């Protein structure tokens, strides 16, 4: 791996057209502009290279970016390749991803860069042939002079183009979407070949000359501290080089706590693991070290009937409308902690030198990684180099930098580069889990099947409370923040609406998990609307469509610019129902359930079809999903992400659960935390709503929220039994 390429070297030999541009990859808008972090390089051999370090963790953004580039450049798809961008520290600004923002936030910048390159090639041809630019056209990797038919490949024009003054990318003409050749068509993933022949490099695969490997022994209870250790036996294991304590880090940011422990550094991963086995360490267990699922549940139950901490929505008077109403519907829904369980456990490789730090990591947050390593090490930003490798899944976990900070802590004690490895047990024990949720919902219908009242109390182990970013007594609205996950924007109209939130204190670490809290809330609200449909003796699909029949905007109570549209919910519901054959008769023991939710601006409806046997065993045979994500840049990529989201959610419905005992997760590996395997994976059909709207949000997470309620609703349709707690295990 190239470690000291300078900017000049990166730009290679003179006869090449090189355009640098700025690629914002966070979903939040960028306030800065002009820091180059991506390049297009066209060389005389007609090869087009796109240099990027946009994190690729499976979501397909890299391929989508290449499609946008090829489109505006009018390139021959087969002449484009993707390379890791040169490791120039200034470029690591804004190299992060999250919130399904990768494709939508790069939409315009990628297209402008491609169009800019195209314009310069047109100008070069015009200059070479002494003709007018507007008589020339780009097509499939060549420039053509229309009146005479003269053509030149891009590669033939780069020498002239490289000497021209670059045109302003904000002033170049972009293609009319109706003329798209690549965008909107399913294209082969650019990273697939390396992933079928073992050559793709993930974080754990980084190999740097002279490197060592390390694991850390950590306290097996939350909030514990190292009391002491005896490393005699550990040091005697062949290959072990060094053993030392690393301190706990919860400043400057408590959002990414590390727990500290004892590092064992060795010449190989296995020797490090064996060394740790031989290490004797004792721990001081604090009060947090006694937390259990039982103690937590008791708190949930108590808090669920105590006055709420925060009232998010209060329209009309739901409390009095429901008081004493005989025909109200009430339900309690519960969702336990979940692990991320990425296939590639956490890891990072770090080398600390006299004049700087170099990092190789499968991180999701390149810019923050650089910033925190700079803070921890005291080096200025331009002395911290971060290489982002492929990531073996993230689902939000690699949005934390805890394991990266640990890797730095170990590497700074050694001269050699050190790869900090987390075993599967480390990963499962020290995850930042999806929070625990409990919902109480009450609802009341009138004789016309209108919702008179809808009252919802959400309780959870709040992520914001755990992070406590502000280090002051957290404001209740801030604590409720992430946990409301569109539960404050239920699209079904109700005359009296109340939404309350109460955090339940817990030492269990938690952070964002694929689709964050929308999945936890969708299970409650989309099951509950189904329960209301049943109360009204109305088909659940028709019931939803009737309630949504007016075109309305549903405004977010906390963000003026964010709203949902009932029209889009209807579209995806209708498409999913149609493709699933909703209403067609099913044999005994089979049922269909429907649910819809939105993530960002991506609307998804799903119909699940289940079969339940007499002994309580059940399976999901098929899931049909309808998606509205605006223009689907790579339709096959969209399908893959929705399939993935559905199956990722399915683990939490089928068998996945993290339980807490003695201040730790009880599940340590895939024997305890049982994830979805092929034999239980349903057939999935994904249907994309045709749209020319600019892609405003991605699909990496949108497939998750509707799945659990669709399955629970299907089980009700098949058996008459309501499932209100996940995972479902068997139907009693």
């Amino acid at each position: 791996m190239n470690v000291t390429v300078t900017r000049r070297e990166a730009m290679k030999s003179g006869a090449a057209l090189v355009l640098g541009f700025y690629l914002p990859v966070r979903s939040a808008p960028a306030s800065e502009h002009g820091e180059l972090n991506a390049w297009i390089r066209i060389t005389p051999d007609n090869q087009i290279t796109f240099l990027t370090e946009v994190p690729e963790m499976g979501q397909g953004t890299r391929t989508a970016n290449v499609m946008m580039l090829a489109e505006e450049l009018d390139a021959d798809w087969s002449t484009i390749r993707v390379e890791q961008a040169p490791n120039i520290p200034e470029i690591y600004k804004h190299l992060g991803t999250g919130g399904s923002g990768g494709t939508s936030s790069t939409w315009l910048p990628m297209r402008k860069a491609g169009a800019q390159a195209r314009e310069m090639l047109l100008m070069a041809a015009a200059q070479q042939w002494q003709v007018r630019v507007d008589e020339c056209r780009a097509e499939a990797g060549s420039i053509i002079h229309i009146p005479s038919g003269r053509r030149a490949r891009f590669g033939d024009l780069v020498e002239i183009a490289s000497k021209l003054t670059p045109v302003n990318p904000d002033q170049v003409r972009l293609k009319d979407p109706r003329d798209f050749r690549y965008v909107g068509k399913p294209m082969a993933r650019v990273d697939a070949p390396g992933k079928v022949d073992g050559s793709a490099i993930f974080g754990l695969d980084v190999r740097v000359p002279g490197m060592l490997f390390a694991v850390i022994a950590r306290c097996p209870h939350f909030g514990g501290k190292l009391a002491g250790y005896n490393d005699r036996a550990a040091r005697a294991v062949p290959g072990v080089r060094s053993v030392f304590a690393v301190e706990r880090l919860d400043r400057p940011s408590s959002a990414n706590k590390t727990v500290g422990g004892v590092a064992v550094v060795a010449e190989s991963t296995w020797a490090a693991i064996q060394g740790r086995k031989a290490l004797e360490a004792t721990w001081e267990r604090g009060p947090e070290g006694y937390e259990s699922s039982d103690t937590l549940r008791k708190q949930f139950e108590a808090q669920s009937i105590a006055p709420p901490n925060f009232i998010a929505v209060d329209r009309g008077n739901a409390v009095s409308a429901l008081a004493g109403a005989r025909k109200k519907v009430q339900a309690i829904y519960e969702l336990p902690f979940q692990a991320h369980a990425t296939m590639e456990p956490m890891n990072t490789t770090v080398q600390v030198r006299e004049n700087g730090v170099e990092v190789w990591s499968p991180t999701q947050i390149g810019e923050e990684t650089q910033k925190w390593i700079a803070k921890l090490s005291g080096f200025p930003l331009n002395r911290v180099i971060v290489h982002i490798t492929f990531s073996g899944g993230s689902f939000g976990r690699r949005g934390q930098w805890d394991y990266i900070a640990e890797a730095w802590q170990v590497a700074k004690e050694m001269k050699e580069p050190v790869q900090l490895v987390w075993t599967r047990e480390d990963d499962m024990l020290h995850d930042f889990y999806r929070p625990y949720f409990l919902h109480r919902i009450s609802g009341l219908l009138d004789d016309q099947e209108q919702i008179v009242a809808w009252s919802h109390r959400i309780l959870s182990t709040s992520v914001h409370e755990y992070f406590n970013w502000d280090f002051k007594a957290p404001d209740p609205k801030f604590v409720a923040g992430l946990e409301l996950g569109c539960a404050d924007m239920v699209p079904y109209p109700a005359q009296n609406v109340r939404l309350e939130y109460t955090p339940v204190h817990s030492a269990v670490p938690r952070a964002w998990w694929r689709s964050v809290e929308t999945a936890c809330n969708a299970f409650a609200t989309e099951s509950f609307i189904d329960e209301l449909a049943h109360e009204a003796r109305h088909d659940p699909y028709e019931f939803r469509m009737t309630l949504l029949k007016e075109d309305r905007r549903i405004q977010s109570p906390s963000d003026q610019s964010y709203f949902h549209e009932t029209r889009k919910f209807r579209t995806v519901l209708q498409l999913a129902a149609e493709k699933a054959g909703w209403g067609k008769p099913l044999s005994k023991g089979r049922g269909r359930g429907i649910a819809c939710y939105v993530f960002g601006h991506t609307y998804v409806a799903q119909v699940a079809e289940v079969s339940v046997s007499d002994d309580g065993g059940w399976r999901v045979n098929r899931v049909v999903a309808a998606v509205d994500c605006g223009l689907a840049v790579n339709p096959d990529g969209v399908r893959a992400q929705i399939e993935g989201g559905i199956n990722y959610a399915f683990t939490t419905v089928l068998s996945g659960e993290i339980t807490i005992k003695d201040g730790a997760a009880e599940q340590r590996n895939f024997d305890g935390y049982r994830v979805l395997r092929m034999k239980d994976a349903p057939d999935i059909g994904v249907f994309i709503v045709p749209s020319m709207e600019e892609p405003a949000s991605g699909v990496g997470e949108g497939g998750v929220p509707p799945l659990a309620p669709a399955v629970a609703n299907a089980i009700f349709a098949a058996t008459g039994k309501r499932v209100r707690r996940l995972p479902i295990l068997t139907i009693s």
Partner: protein
Amino acid sequence: MNSIGLIVNGKRHELAVPPDTPLLWVLRDTLGLTGTKYGCGMGLCGACTVHLDGQAVRSCQTSIGSVAKRQVTTIEGLSANRSHPIQRAWIAEQVPQCGYCQSGQIMQAAALVARTPHPTREQIDEAMSGNICRCATYQRIRRAIQRAAEAKA
């Protein structure tokens, strides 16, 4: 320490490693063949699958001492230029997402079609359920195996 003789992807190696070292770590750390992945260390996830004399085994559960003088094939040695029918089918069906589990999936699938050239869906599910995919590309894996089986027909 005595050295252990090993044949990996057709090449002979003499290695001075403790005989109880798992083959997985010898491949990744001693030989630098990082295509075979670590996922769980307990034989539960299948990411470490390689072929031993043509049979699929979990290399994290296979000691180096037990494979002395036997033929080990890793993903790197499965074919030249991704030409194995399983690899071709994987590209045609656009199977990989993050890609981390895919080496193990491909090795397991290759062993399946070598002994069962036209597996039924049930046979596929049974043979492949030891390989976890968190991106859940299962549906595409099934289709790719069926495609590869048809191609060989």
